[in-house]
């Protein structure tokens, strides 16, 4: 379990990025941190593996205070996938890129080989294993970045805007990946603007506004609260809006579910 207790954070230039965040991330849970750009989402997740330390309050990762552990120690448990893959890809091949953290964490060579294969297949990258990561498209780079973190199987997988540059099909695959990892006991924490994706995944949602958590609850509840979303400068997913206008309760959140529902409606309308 990760505990954030009344966490305050101020950048060197005086920007108050977090103002009393209290958050509990259970084992084997799924959380989406949402809010407009500049609301402190990235700052928040950088606290989870100790890249940033609170100026007030504390962060406990499985009981360990982040101020008393190194980033390397914490990262073994909390795997952070950064937003921009260009900021991390450097190896000559995709394979080496994925092996890099495994070497840093001191996995034995046979284990590294096994995990690289596993991660490549998991993210559908096996065809590119000998290619340079720099020659890939934006979406593929993003997947390499995810694979390189998933490979060490961190207990908590944290992703900053994982859906950027991914088409609908890839997003569905990502959703399936999250489900698979959760079945294996991992927790997923993702930062996103993408209300559609958050609704589809049905994660618990934390709404962040100006460095404070405005609301925390199931996706179904938060993402259909129009007024609340407005305060966080977000709009409800289109599906939710549609079903709210159709006055269907409770609203439908997944595209497949909506499809079934609409077909049923249509079937009734024209016998």
């Amino acid at each position: 379990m990760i505990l954030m207790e009344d966490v305050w954070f101020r950048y060197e230039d005086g920007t108050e990025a977090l103002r009393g965040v209290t958050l509990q991330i259970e084992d084997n849970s799924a959380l989406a941190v949402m809010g407009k750009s500049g609301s402190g989402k990235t700052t928040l997740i950088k606290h989870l593996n100790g890249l940033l330390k609170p100026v007030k309050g504390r962060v406990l990762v499985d009981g360990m205070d982040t101020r008393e552990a190194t980033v390397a120690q914490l990262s073994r448990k909390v795997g952070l996938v950064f937003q921009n893959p260009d900021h991390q890809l450097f190896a000559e091949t995709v394979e080496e890129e994925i092996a890099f953290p495994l070497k840093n964490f001191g996995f034995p060579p046979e284990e590294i080989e096994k995990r690289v294969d596993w991660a490549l297949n998991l993210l559908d990258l096996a065809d590119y294993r000998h290619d340079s990561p720099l020659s890939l498209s934006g979406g593929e780079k993003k997947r390499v970045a995810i694979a390189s973190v998933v490979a060490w199987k961190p207990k908590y997988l944290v992703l900053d805007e994982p859906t950027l540059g991914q088409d609908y099909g890839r997003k569905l695959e990502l959703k399936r990946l999250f489900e698979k990892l959760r079945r294996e006991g991992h927790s997923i924490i993702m930062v996103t603007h993408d209300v559609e994706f958050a609704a589809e995944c049905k994660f618990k949602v934390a709404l962040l506004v100006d460095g404070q958590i405005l609301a925390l609850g199931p996706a179904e509840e938060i993402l259909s609260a129009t007024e609340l979303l407005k305060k966080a400068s977000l709009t409800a997913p289109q599906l939710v809006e549609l079903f709210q206008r159709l006055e269907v309760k409770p609203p439908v959140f997944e595209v497949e579910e909506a499809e079934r529902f609409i077909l049923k409606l249509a079937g009734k309308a024209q016998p």
Partner: protein
Amino acid sequence: MMVYRGFLFKKADTLLHRLDPRVKFAMAFAIIVCSLLFEELLALTVLTVVLLPLARLGKVLKEWLQTLKGLSFLAIFIFAVNLVFIFFGSGKSWEFPAAMALRFLVVVSAFSLFFLVTSPDELGLALQQSKIPFDVVFALTMAIRFVPVLALEIQTIADAQRSKGLELDRGNLLMRIKRRIPLLIPLIVSSVKRSLEIAEAMESRGYGSDRPRTSLYQLKLRKVDYLFLLAIVSLLALSIYIKLVFPPFTLLP
């Protein structure tokens, strides 16, 4: 890591800010020339101390002191290396290595002060009116503008790689250098990418298609500029005079 802040323009309305950028440059230049003229501790200390009230005048004392603090590690390093190779090597006084370290501080902190009180626009204007081609001026001012962007980028890259278990500060010097390759490559790649993007954006807006551009503002020396120039020239003249007339003096008999 944050030493670069001491080289970024800080907006304010002070006498120093209002000075002509060319005069400000002459001032930094004169101080640097003086620091090269002397290798006596006393003279170099005086030069450093002269910068202090100037930094205060420009309301950038805090930033300037930060530069000094950031550089102190390097200065100590220079002192140590010189001490080992010169003091023990040739039996010269301990003052010489100290002077070398101090000289380094004077040169860099003089530049720091110059950049703190001179906006990139002013600098560009000054260069342009010195008949330096606009392309060169533009490239220079743009490079200065991108320093904070680059610094933030290095930070993000370091964060990303540290999150993958990279420990930057472990092992000997050679290993530490090697450990920075995962930082260097993404930095170079994204910098090149950005410059290509900027070049395309500039071209699509017609950069370079027109006659040489003129500027709205013309730099003109005012009374206070002449006063400062006078002070600068006097300082230089005095230094050269002292250097020529007096034999090298030392603090210890």
